[in-house]
């Protein structure tokens, strides 16, 4: 097919859903796993093609602009790498019999459905459609969290489900309110939900109504972002589900909700009368950072540990966007991308580690750099990156956030720095005990696939030292959009 008849957006949506159906039908591990990888790769490539092919005109349902293209590409990429990781991970799960072939089919189908949901959420130009898409993604992840059928897994899934549903309800109410605010201006019907239309007329909306709407949207989607005190589902969902899902949760699903929030923040920012969302986001962000930092100290389950660190980083990102301004917004975007890459890489490492050691208990894992150098040093690099140390990417974003904030709001910056230092202390404390010292637990060699992990880490490393000009221009433009 030539470039004109080829519609990348359709591909990004259809490939996953199609392969989902296919995977639901096909038996056999090898085939399905490979197919999963191939499908994800195809999705990723078609997402890449969005750069080269001119973008489709924003229609009533579909929109591709500078903001969401970042998310789409990141989403499909991590989805692709995770599918590679999941192939080797799931193989081991089948050997140990934690997963039965039936559930395997289910797993792959759900994986692609989830990718579909997330992509749909990104490309949708209609806030109602976006809502529906986020719900699809959430429900599929709920099912996958519970896939091990252990008491803990079901507990986690159930908690996730209930809290998620309430979040859904809030988000919907907020969406309705936005429509109500829009209706007098843009008239009834379809247009009242088309984002491109909304943003044009946002200035004339009823500001007070927008305020209430934003509160509901913030809480609704914020629940999915995992901001404290709405975070409760997040740690257990990460800890009890299969590790590829933890990686996707931290790396992608949080971004989906974040993306929704950003859309509405832009909307609110476009309205002069409405309250600035900044203070709310900054406060919640700081609460999340400090709270998560404290929680990190008492974690004994390695996956839960990194789940809390995800909460912390979401807090940082929300804080950055709340501060606003070119620097902070740039930092926020960068931080989001870097966090997705790094955190998923960490979960890849953790997945293999917990498989080879047969436990997720931190206290039962020691001296990894001795027994499994690749995994151990990979984890060390990942944690160093996530803790915001150079020369890795997160350092740059944290540098920008903290320094730009300190010049404007010293006290906020000091609180933030306090949280960062606290979290740093906790993470490095666990790291030293896990990666160094006399080895503990099995030293059996792993047939792990290191490619995804080191691919992500090297990307993060490069980004920390050198950001290509196009990315920068593009980020800066998005930062402008975010106001």
């Amino acid at each position: 097919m030539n470039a004109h008849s080829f519609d990348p957006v359709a591909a990004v949506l259809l490939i996953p859903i199609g392969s989902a159906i296919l995977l639901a039908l096909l038996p056999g591990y090898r085939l399905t796993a490979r197919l999963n990888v191939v499908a994800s790769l195809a999705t990723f490539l078609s997402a890449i093609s969005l750069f080269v092919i001119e973008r489709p005109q924003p229609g009533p349902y579909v929109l591709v602009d500078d903001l969401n293209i970042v998310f789409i590409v990141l989403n499909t990429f991590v989805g692709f790498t995770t599918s590679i990781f999941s192939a080797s991970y799931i193989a081991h799960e089948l050997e140990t019999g934690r997963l039965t072939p039936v559930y395997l089919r289910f797993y792959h189908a759900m994986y692609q459905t989830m990718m579909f949901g997330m992509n749909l959420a990104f490309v949708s130009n209609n806030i109602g459609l976006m809502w529906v898409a986020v719900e699809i993604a959430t429900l599929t992840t709920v099912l996958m969290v519970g896939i091990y059928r252990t008491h803990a897994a079901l507990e986690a899934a159930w908690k996730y489900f209930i809290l998620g549903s309430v979040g859904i309800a809030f988000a919907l109410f907020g969406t309705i309110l936005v429509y109500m605010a829009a209706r007098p201006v843009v008239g009834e019907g379809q247009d009242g939900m088309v984002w491109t239309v909304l943003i044009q007329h946002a200035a004339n909306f009823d500001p007070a109504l927008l305020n209430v709407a934003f509160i509901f949207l913030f809480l609704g989607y914020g629940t999915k972002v995992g901001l404290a005190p709405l975070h409760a589902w997040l740690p257990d969902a990460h800890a009890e589900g299969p590790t590829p899902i933890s990686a996707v949760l931290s790396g992608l699903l949080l971004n989906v909700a974040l993306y929704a929030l950003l859309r509405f923040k832009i909307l609110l920012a476009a309205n002069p009368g409405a309250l600035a969302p900044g203070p709310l986001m900054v406060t919640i962000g700081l609460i999340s950072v400090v709270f998560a930092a404290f929680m990190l100290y008492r974690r004994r389950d390695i996956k839960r540990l990194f789940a809390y660190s995800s909460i912390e980083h979401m807090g940082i990102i929300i804080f950055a966007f709340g501060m606003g301004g070119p620097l902070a917004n740039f930092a926020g975007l960068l931080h989001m991308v870097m966090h997705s890459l790094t955190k998923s890489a960490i979960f890849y490492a953790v997945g293999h580690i917990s498989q080879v050691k047969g436990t997720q208990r931190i206290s039962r894992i020691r001296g990894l750099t001795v027994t499994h150098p690749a995994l151990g040093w990979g984890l060390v690099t990942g944690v160093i990156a996530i803790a915001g140390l150079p020369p890795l990417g997160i350092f740059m974003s944290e540098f920008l956030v903290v320094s730009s904030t300190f010049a404007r709001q010293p006290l906020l910056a000091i609180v933030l720095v306090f949280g960062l230092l606290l979290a740093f202390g906790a993470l490095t404390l666990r790291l030293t005990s896990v990666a160094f010292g006399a080895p503990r637990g099995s030293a059996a060699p792993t047939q792990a696939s290191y490619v995804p992990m080191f691919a992500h880490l090297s990307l993060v490393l490069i980004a920390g030292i050198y950001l290509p000009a196009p990315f920068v221009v593009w980020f800066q433009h998005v930062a402008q959009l975010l106001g």
Partner: protein
Amino acid sequence: MSAVDLQMACVGGLLGLAVLAIVLSRSKAATAVIYGATLAVSAIALIGSMRSLLGDPANVTVLALPVGLPWIGAHFRLDALASFFLIVVNLGGAAASLYGLGYGHHEATPHRVLPFFPAFLAGMNLVVLADDAFSYLLCWEFMSLASWALVMAHHREAGNAKAGYIYLVMASFGTLALLLAFGLLAGPAGDYGFAGIRAAPHTPHAAALVLILMLLGAGSKAGLVPLHVWLPLAHPAAPSHVSALMSGVMTKVAIYGFIRVVFDLLGQPAWWASVVVLFLGGITAVMGILYAMMEKDLKRLLAYSTIENVGIIFASLGLALAFQANGLKLLAALAFTAALFHVLNHSFFKSLLFFGAGAVLTATGERDMDKLGGLIHRMPLTSFVFLVACVAISALPPFNGFVSEWLIFQAVLQSPELPQWALKIMVPAVGALLALAVALAAACFVKAYGVAFLGRPRSVAAETAGEVDRYSLAAMFILSALCLLAGILPGLVIDALAPITTEILGGRMPIQANEAWLSIAPIAESRSSYNGLLVMVFITISASLAVYFIHRFASRALRRGPAWGCGFSDPTPAAQYSGGSFAQPIRRVFGTLVFHARDHVEMPPPGDIRPARLRIELHDLIWEGMYAPIAGAIGISSDRLNRLQFLTIRQYLSLVFATLVSLLLVLAIWS
């Protein structure tokens, strides 16, 4: 190829070596290859930086790379100050590599050392070269990270993991402080280039805040009391040549950061700023050496003495600030030169001392001085150079340590020129503190040398020790020669430092090369002058005269016999004075106040054959008073918060509900 390009090329070479080391980490030849190559590269970098310091001082070369912060890029700049510190860094690096050529062969897990050693050197070079806030911090933290990895090289030894952890946390604390400082300097617009920062005006409040933050950031890296706690843990934990780099060089890089920001970027300082720095410096000097005096682990003793020297340097920097704030450029130049001179000297003899400690470690496997002794017989060369280093660090003529401290005292003596009364009163008091520190340092190194190298061996390891390999010896002899040279030809060093003072302070000391007979006179010969060369010549002449006459006229008879010891000879070497007993008088004088030191003697009743026991109780008040409470508070609060992990779904829902309602209430009240 401009000077800065050369330096950057060397840095690139070092980074390449780090990668190479990873590649051939487990091969036999790795050690020789890597250390040899590092030696070569650092030697080139050393020559380059020397040329740029001694060459045309006005020639400041810059280099911008399209990396780092996108819209700013990474800037690197080589001016006089930078070149001086590059000399310190690369000299230390070269010496350590030479030493490593021999020492590295005793390394059990070379693949944990080799990749990070060149990376560490590269990091330190980069920090000195960086010319914008982002690159500066990036390289700074990279340096910390590399050194952390080296500290964790022997991660299985007890306490090393803890040391590495504390080091990493303190380093990150320092970086965040620096980050805040730069954020303030760059302003909300985010003008992170040093050039821009230098040009921009800074309000007094901002300047004050930046100074505090720099003291926190650079101070924690340099080991200012009370931020020093990580230093005596981390420095000894690393392999000895790395310890030498960390103590002798990395602390200097931290001092460079302080100078760069406070003297260069911040512009005209306020006079009270100097009070803070002076005070901290004096306290640090005395506390550091007192800790060292109480220490029995040789490498930790050296680490504590590093803290002392850092204190001395900061004190003289404080003096420079004071003079500079009052526009006394000549005197500021004097104090500043003294500080830089001491930086140089300390990098010489502290590296040398750590090399010696490393040699002892390889020969005996012991760091505990109370298990050593009598090494002067078994390791004659090592003990000779170690003696040189001890004399130098104890500030005794004709070695280099004395010259810098002499200059500092000369600067202290200029305090009457200062208009502020606080300073007039304070400076001599700080001078007294420094004098105390110097005297205690002499005592401390008498203890170190006397217990470790003299007397009778206290363990089998010490009895069977042998001399170390020739590479290590070469490194140590070169450094001790440098100690002597800098001591007898101080005028050359001072003149070499002049471009820096003119660049940073806009004033300089009088040209020393004009003084007769190579003597130095900070202000005027009538006020004070010193001639290391002549002093050494005199001592040699008179000593040899004495020897000549004695051997000419006096009896030559010499008979070996058992030690006299007032008639009763000690049965065992254990009866000798140990480190603890040697320190006892000073512990009695200072310890009760500073360490809440108590000696508990358990004397069995008469007729009981149990041995009497002496137990010494020391408290690190800074740790117990500052760090332990913080850790406790964090623990308690995380325990409290951790309950949130175990709520029921209904309770979580109520959290959500409460958030919603409160936000709605806020909105209802607000709008």
